[in-house]
């Protein structure tokens, strides 16, 4: 699965490079697109292949933050 994910990332990088090259994009656009792609590839790789059960999930964090808001709005405080 790691190999498949690696191939997916490589193909996305090549696709973006080709796409930006065809459209004569500015250097700054290359930096932004590849910066974002690198960050998201690392994040997804981390989620897929590393044991992250010790990290709270986004929904757990949002639940802690917004459950009181919901209880307040629905008059259940």
């Amino acid at each position, binding site marked *: 699965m790691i190999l498949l994910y690696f191939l*997916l*990332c490589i193909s*996305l990088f090549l*696709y*973006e490079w080709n*796409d*930006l090259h065809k459209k004569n*994009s500015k250097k700054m*656009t290359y930096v*932004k*697109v590849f910066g*974002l*792609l690198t*960050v*998201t*590839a690392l*994040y*997804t*790789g*981390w*989620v*897929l292949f590393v044991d*992250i*059960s010790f990290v709270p*999930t*986004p*929904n*757990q964090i*949002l*639940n802690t*933050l*917004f*459950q*009181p*808001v*919901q*209880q*307040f*709005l*629905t*008059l*259940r405080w």
Partner: protein
Amino acid sequence: MSMRQLEQISQTQLMMTTFMYGFGSHGFIVTPLVKIGNYSSWFIMIIANLLAMLFIWAGASVTRKLPSQNLLEDGKLIVGKWVHYGVLLYMLYFFFHLGAFILRHFVDFLIQTYFPTTPEEVLLFFFIFVVVVAVRYGFESIARFAQLIFFLGVVMSLTIPVFLFKDIDFDMAIAFINRFEPLIIWEGVMYVIPWYADAIVFVLIMQMISEKAKTTKSIFIGSAFTTLIFFPFIITQVLMFGPHFTADMTIAGVELLRQISFANFIENIDPVYISLWLTAIFVKISVCLLVSSTLAAKLLQVKDYRRLLNALGLCFFGFSIHMSENYSETFEFLLEGWVGFAWTVILLPVLYWLVAKIRRIGGEKAKKSTGV
């Protein structure tokens, strides 16, 4: 700017897309709605629909007053550059999360019901792949797809109560008109409003819509169609199972569909309805990803949102896996947390509208200040 970026959808397409957008998420709220509202669920739904349109009206109204009629571009004229960018970042997270949340919830349901041996990642990946391709082709493609499915969606959904007519216990029907408790109705309305008002997403991409003056009307008609579909559905649900049993199911609608046994050749018809719901989920997620990409492109000052789409699609995949540990956590968030989160977002366009009113921004003054 290429011709592809200038494509705009018509108001009819917007109305149909709004219907599909609402249809996608409403399948999940039958259980919470009946749990809160009991026999007054139908009334809560209608009131929530009407009130939610006020938020859409505020958003569309303030957007139309701006010089370029584009809230993303000119919202900074109302609240200032940095506050506006902060709001856009918050909305980006909200719609990105909403898309991933709906997808994760739906995939969890599919795995539990139809694909018990398929890994979750596989379904998520293929679904996201299709969504990314659709978003790359632009809003018009998504709207045309919604247009294609609209009539089938309306007609098929209205057949559900007809198929179940003979199994319904009509003795309970009187409770629908004599049980109204203000506190329950308040709680239900506050819970359901964000599920309609999340159509504020279309206000953020109003530059992709033609005849902008009719936007609120089209969104209202689209959402009214959603109510029209779910109104008989919820009543049938309560008459079939009763409010308490319905409130204990995770996705109550599916259990209702499984009861359909109209003739020997129409047994196990639920996959047909589920596949129709899947198309609505597809529209919902596509719109969420489209808006997230547009917002990301605006924040990073990249001209075409398509440049960031692959990166966001990959993040969407990771995020939808990471967002919850299991199905119960997703369901808990649906019941207890999402609505609070959504209220903080649907109030933002109202805030813009209020600030614009107080500062008397809009119309001629804004045009003069930007030299348009």
